[in-house]
Every structure is written in C-alpha cells, then in structure tokens.
C-alpha cells in the first residue's frame, strides 16, 4: 500500500509533512450570527450587519458549531477543553469584514488525538480549533492580471470553520492523501460537514520539510497552500519534496516561506517569506466570554456519537461474517453502511446482502449512473429480492434481472415477480409434464445419453428450462430427468 512508496532519494532524504485541514461545519447558521450557512447562493444574499462587520455589531457563539467540533474531537480521541476562549487574529484583507478573524490561539477546544491510517501509520493530532471563514474575492475580468477590479462575496464570511492540525507525522504524499480520506470518512459519519473539497468545505494546507533519513531534528519548512483536491495535494507534495531535495543537492538552503500550488503549471511558487510574515497580534476577543463545557455535556455528546467507521468495519467482520475487504468498502460512507445493515437485518443474510450490494446492485447503479443515495431503491426491496432467491421463489438468474428494475425504478420485487409471472416453478407435477414433453421431442438426445454421452443431460436440462421460460427449479428438473432416463 501507499506506506511503502516513500519518496527517498539516493542521498536518502525523507520528507516530513504536517497538515492543517480547514473544514466548514454544516451548521444551519453561521458561526457568530443567524445567517443561513449554505453553499452556492446568489452573492451577498446570506449576509447581515454582524457578518458584514458593521459598526456596533457583536458576535454570539453558535453552540452547535462548538458541539460539532467537540464531537469530531471525541471521534478522533482528542481531549475536549473544559475551558477555552476565542482570540482575534488581526490582519487586513478585503474578504475579511472586520479585518480580524475570530479564531482560537492558545486555548483551542480540543488537543491531542490521532488518526489511524489503514496502511499502518498513526497520525497524531496537535489540536482542533474553531474559527470563522472569510468571504471570497472574485477578480473581475478574463484573468487576474487583466482584472481591473475585485468583487467580494460575503456569503461565506462567518461560516464556522474548524482547523484540524496534525503533528509532523506524515512522510509521503500518499500518506497525506490517505489521512485526508480517513478524515473525510469520519467527518461525513459524524454529519458535521459536507466535506466537499471542490466546494471548499474541506481545504488543506501542508507544512513540508526534508531531512536526512535518521535525523530527528526537523528541517526548515515551507507551507504549501491552495491545493483544491486530493489529487492536487498528492501532486503538490511530490513537487515540493522534489524541489526541496533538488535545492539541498544544489547546496541551497531551504527558506521558511509560504508557497502556493499552481494546478495548471504543476509547481509551487513562493508568495511570502518569513521576513514578510504577518504579526497577527492575537489577543482574547473582548466581545466573547470564555467558553466552558461541563463534563456532563461532553459525556452526553459522547453517548450521542454514531458508531465510527473503524468500529463498524470491525463489527461487520466479527458479527456479520464479512471479509475485511467487504466491510471496508461498505463502511466508507455511513449511508452505505446503514443501507447494508438494514438489508442484512431484513433478509437475515448479511453475507448475501454484502454480495448483492458489492455485486449486482453496484453494477446496476453504475449502469444507470446512480448512487445508492440517488437510487429510489429501499433496503426492504433489496431484502425481499434476496429472500425470494434464498427461499427458492425465483432463480438467481431471474433475480439479477429483477434487480435492475428495483435499482433503477424502485420497483417492489415481489410485485414484479407476480406481474411478470417469474416465480420459480417447484410444483413437481408441472415440471413432470414439461420433462415428459421434452423427452418425447428429443429422442436423439435421450438415445445419446443412454449410450453414455453424459453431456446430453445438460442439453435436456436446458430444453426443460427453456420450455419453462427459466422458471422451473433447476435442481428438481435435473433430478427428475435423471430419474426418467433411468
């Protein structure tokens, strides 16, 4: 897996990577005001005096955002601070209405915790803190250079944002991608964020440095920003690690700086050196009182937490008899896992439910460009289909055909079997009649079977099935033919 593809050169440098992931929380309203928190609305329609930073306005903490963050922290094994506070991060930027951002400096809501990568590495977390998002600058004109003015959309200003900061525990771009994937699964399980990187609800900055393998001290880092997809994270980190290695090999010194990833050119470029770094003049926000969280509240949140993906995966293997591979895929999304569990419970056949979901259901969904969420199929319908196979009502072959209408149209499989007369014939009398007809019409085959050509039996089975339009129970047919042929 990815853990083995470490970027190591002949001089044997290793990369050290730490990630800062910004996640927009999917609360109903913004962090410090009552405006709706929503993506994609007309510019500047989701704004009020508070999130526009009008004179005299004051922030009020969205308790739900605090809860979402703390639940994320609890899911990742972090310690929730009984007491934390908000600070102001001061710098001038036109998309920030107050020219300071309310964030958390030295008393974040959670500290510690870790994310276990399936490939083996444990990525420790430093902290998770809560802050407000900024607005968005839209440079008018064909390009940034040709633009003569900038429009600002403040819909995003004040959206609750949590920043998840790792320790420098990653050493390859692939591990970084794996970490983001794991994080995404947990966040979507908790239902605290849409985690859509292309819509900006999950954004990632990386601190990257290199050092000689075996060295324990950290090298000088560069902060890489503006990576807008998992793929660009991998590409940007590869580029940056190679750039630093080439620089060191050329005898250059790495300077501490901020570098932006340019997706089209496939390079990172320097935007700010350490000397130009902002002095953010953090200080406690006097408009907000310190945040205290009672132990009983933390306990309640803990009880409200859904079963997390890794626990669910283990349970599917342990209790439902699934392979780790099957359990892994079925637990990637909470909705898939929930659907699977509903089917497994209704059909009382977890293994069959898994086979269907990873086989025919998936195939039918792909064929009709659907997802489990967009398909009209209900868990009960899939369970009914599975039950009709296990009970012998329909053959496996017929069931595969029914599956398609169930997935595409949400059809009730039992009604389809009824309407189309697809129920398997198990009535010995009816089958006996067909067998007699087939034997009568195929004297040649009967003769060749009797002369020792065993293959003729399969031909006769096929003829009976054909005559029954696939509905005859194949086991009964075979047994009856053998009996008749003596």
């Amino acid at each position: 897996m990815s853990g083995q593809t470490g970027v190591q050169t002949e001089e044997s440098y290793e990369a050290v990577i730490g990630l800062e992931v910004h996640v927009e929380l999917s609360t109903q309203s913004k962090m410090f005001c009552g405006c709706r928190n929503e993506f994609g609305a007309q510019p500047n329609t989701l704004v009020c005096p508070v999130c526009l930073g009008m004179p005299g306005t004051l922030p009020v903490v969205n308790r739900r955002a605090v809860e979402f963050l703390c639940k994320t922290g609890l899911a990742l094994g972090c310690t929730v601070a009984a007491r934390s506070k908000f600070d102001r991060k001061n710098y001038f930027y036109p998309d920030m209405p107050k020219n300071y951002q309310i964030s958390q400096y030295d008393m974040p809501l959670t500290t510690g915790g870790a994310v276990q990568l399936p490939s083996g590495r444990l990525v420790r977390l430093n902290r998770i803190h809560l802050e407000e998002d900024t607005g968005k600058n839209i440079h008018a004109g064909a390009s940034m250079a040709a633009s003569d003015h900038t429009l600002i959309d403040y819909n995003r200003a004040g959206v609750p944002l949590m920043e998840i900061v790792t320790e420098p525990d990653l050493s390859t771009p692939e591990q970084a991608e794996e970490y983001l994937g794991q994080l995404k699964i947990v966040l979507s399980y908790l239902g605290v964020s849409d985690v859509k990187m292309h819509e900006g609800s999950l954004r990632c900055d990386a601190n990257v440095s290199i050092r000689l393998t075996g060295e324990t001290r950290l090298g000088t880092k560069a902060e890489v920003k503006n990576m807008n997809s998992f793929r660009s994270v991998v590409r940007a980190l590869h580029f940056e690690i190679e750039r630093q290695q080439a620089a060191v090999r050329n005898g250059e010194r790495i300077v501490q700086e901020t570098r932006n990833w340019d997706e089209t050119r496939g390079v990172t470029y320097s935007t700010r050196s350490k000397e130009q770094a902002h002095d953010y003049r953090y200080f406690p926000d006097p408009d907000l009182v310190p945040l205290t969280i009672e132990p009983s509240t933390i306990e309640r949140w803990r009880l409200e937490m859904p079963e997390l993906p890794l626990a669910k995966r283990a349970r599917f293997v342990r209790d439902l008899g699934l392979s780790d591979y099957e359990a892994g895929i079925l637990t990637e999304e909470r909705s898939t896992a929930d659907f699977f569990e509903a089917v497994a419970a209704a059909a009382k056949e977890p293994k069959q439910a898994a086979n269907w979901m990873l086989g025919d259901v998936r195939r039918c969904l792909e064929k009709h460009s659907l997802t489990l969420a967009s398909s009209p199929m209900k868990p009960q319908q899939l369970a009914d289909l599975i039950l009709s196979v296990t009970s012998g009502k329909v053959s496996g072959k017929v069931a595969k055909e029914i599956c398609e209408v169930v997935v595409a149209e949400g059809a009730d499989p039992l009604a389809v079997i009824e309407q189309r007369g697809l129920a398997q014939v198990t009535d010995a009398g009816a089958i006996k009649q067909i067998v007699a007809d087939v034997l009568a019409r195929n004297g040649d085959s009967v003769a060749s079977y009797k002369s020792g050509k065993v293959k003729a039996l399969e031909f006769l089975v096929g003829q009976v099935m054909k005559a029954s339009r696939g509905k005859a129970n194949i086991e009964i047919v075979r047994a009856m033919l053998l009996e008749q042929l003596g």
Partner: protein
Amino acid sequence: MKTGHEIADAIASKRLSALEAAEAALANAQSLEGELHAYIRLTPERARAQARAIDARLKQGERLGPLAGVPVAVKDIFCVSGEITTAGSKILENFRAPYSATVVRKLDEAGAVIIGKTNMDEFAMGSSCENSAFFKTRNPWDTTRVPGGSSGGSASTVGAGTVPIGLGTDTGGSIREPAAFCNIVGVKPTYGRVSRYGMIAFASSLDQAGPMTADVRDAAQTLAVIAGHDPMDSTSVDVPVDDYVSALRSDLRGTRVGIVTEFEEQIGRSDPALAALYKAAYADLQRLGAQLVDVALPHARYGLATYYLIAPAECSSNLARYDGARYGLRVEGDGDVYSMFERTRAAGFGDEVKRRIILGTYALSAGYYDAYYVRAQKIRTLIKRDFDEAFARCDVIACPAVSCPAFELGAKTQDPVAMYLMDYFTIPMSLAGVPALSVPAGYVSGLPVGLQIVAPAFEESRMLGVAHAYEQATRHAWAQTPRVAQRAGSAS
C-alpha cells in the same frame, strides 16, 4: 418643566402632548445650537413621527412605557436604523445605520422620543469633546469651556435643559466627567448591565452605555429601561434588573460610605478648593445618616497606565474594519486595495484616534504583548481586587468625579497626557467593571462639579439610592441656572 418624570407625568395626564414636548425640545435645541453645537444631527422627522404615534396611542387609552413622550438625545455612537451614525468621525460621515442598537430599541419601546444624535469625541476617545471630527461642543455653564467628553454633546444638551435625558457611553469616564462638568447626573452601569449591541465599539471590555439626566430619578428610570441581558451581546449579563426607582432613598441611615485615602491625598495636592468641596459633600452624606469609613485603593494609581494599554489595544483591532471597502469614507488608492485602505484611514481618522491605534498596535505586537498587554491585564485584576476589599468594609464609595471643573477650550489639546489625567478618578471603576455615577455636588468659581458614588457590581440600586438622598438633601443642580439657559429664557 425640566425632568423626564415631570414631562412623562404631564403627558400621561394629558396636560402636554408628546408632539408639543418634542417640538419644544427641537426648537430649544435649534435656538441653542449656534452656541452649544451639541448635535451632529437633529432627527426632527423621526421625532415627530414617534411623538404623533405616542399621542395617538394615548388617545386610544393605551398604557405606554415609562418614558412615553419624553424627548431624549442619544450620543452619535448608537446606531439608529435609517439615520446617519458617525461616532464623531469623518470615516463614518456618510454611514447610515441599517439597524438600531438594543438600547435605542428599548428607548423606542419605552416611548422615548429621540430628537437628535449628539456630538462626541471621535470614537469616544477624549475628555473634552474637542476630538470630534466636525465641531467642538460648548459647556452651557460657560461657552468658552468644554462640556467634557467623550459624551459632551449629550451632557451639554441635558445641562442646558433642552432634553431631560441623554444617552452616553463611558469607557474610562466619558459619561461621568461631562456629567460633572455640565451639572447633571451621569451613570456608568456595571460592565455587562447594558447591552453594547449597536453601540460603536471603542474598547470592548470597558465600554458601557448609560443615562445622562436632569436628576437621579430620571437616571434610575432610564437605566431600568435600557438595562438587561441581550442575546445579541455575549458580554451582557443575565442578572435580573432591579426596580431602581423604588430603590431611591431620602436618608442614609445604616449606610457605610467609603472615602478613598489615596484619592483624598491626590485631590488635596492638585486642587485644595475642590478638595474642600468634596469634604463638604462627605459631611452632607454623614448628616444624612451615613457612616464614613476610610478605604484604600492602592493600585488605583496605576489605573491610567493600565487603561492606556488595554483601551488602545482593543481599539486598534475594533477600528480595523473602517477601511473603505464596505461603507463609510473611501479614498481611492493607486490601483491596489491596500493603498486604498491606507489613504482612507489616513484621511478618515483624526490625530487622537491614530495615536491610540498606533499605541494599541504596538502593545499587541509580538515581543511586546506580554510586557504590555498581559501585564496591564494583571494590574487590572489587582485594581478589581482593591474594590472587592474596599467593599468588604463599606456599602458604597464616595469620591471626586473630576480633578477640576470644566476647562477652557484648547487648554489641554496640545498635551495628551494632561487630557488623559482628566480621567484619573473615573478610570479605576471602569477597569474594575463596577457601577459609578456622578451627581451634582456644587460649584467652584461658578462652575459645577460632580460627586462620584461607586457601588459593587450590579448594585446600581444601592448606588442610585445614595445619590438620590444626597441630591434631594443638597439640591445643588437647582441652586444655579446655566448661562445659556438664562439667555434662551427657556427650559425650566
């Protein structure tokens, strides 16, 4: 007719209509404006509409709020929906507020009729009202003198008798000092007692809105209207609001009044005549039955230094939003947004505001933060503790509100530190967050001064009760008439 409760009674008993009261106040304001320059803007249309609505509801026999029909003036630091709100600054000269401050909404609901927005030191930074970007307000007792600041416009217009009630804000003395200079009552409530929502911020951890009124009863009534928890202000405290009017007293039996040793030494050195006046005031309290006890505020002497780190630090951040991007003044830059920010701020802010932004930015900078801001916060805690210890020995503290009467315009404008010293006796209470008021205490060379009464947090009832007994026994405010009011022949 002078006080708000007298006007409210006259309106309630239909001897006067709200519209008549509003028209009289507007006319009086206009006739004095050439001398006092108290208002940045009068709001006659809004006032008349509100007054007519009150009269109509009275006619219907509706029971209205306690300030129904009473003309009031609000400092131009409070947002009033649809009205220009400048905070005394060029940078907000054209800013029309899209919403109303909570206290303005509460005044409206109580039936008060806002007749105008009063002048102030820019962003409430100043002690003389001379830092207004627009013009200098004058003291109704002597128009060559300042009304005090920063709530100078409200003090001047209430002092002149134009309106009985004004709204001010106090960060380090901005209600109490001008109240003392203009011979009115000025209350700085406990920090968190009154909502700050819609009040343009100077120093968030210190700013409080409060009444500036003709007498203590009006102050009690107005405070009862504007106080209370506001879900829009996280720093407003959810403590029940007492019935301040019922708490007004006529004697002080059983009350221990603390006299601050350090303050008495200070005033004795700086102004013996004024020191003698305050000694007489303490004797009046004693005659009313109070027991005088000596208390110490050993860290109060560091108040000024502490204040001038914390307040500028907060203001440097609070005022960052005035950049020309969204509202207010904009001076175009040369092609990039940062030069626009720089030019807008250079043109929009006055010298004192710039001085404090620079001070505060410095105090919060990396490498200086611990030495200045953090240290100042520690001293603030010590000052708070001083008050806790003092209030273990007394019920209220009585002390000077000011170290001199109103000074001549221009007397201190060249010396910022001399100006800052004006708040020597008022800043410690702001840092401690405790309530304090100034009540008229007599005259020095014909100029009024105020006595400061301080109480523990949320003990406004006790504070107002003591002030009322003192006011009613001495009646200093009614002993003389301000000169502009004599000439205008109006008001009383």
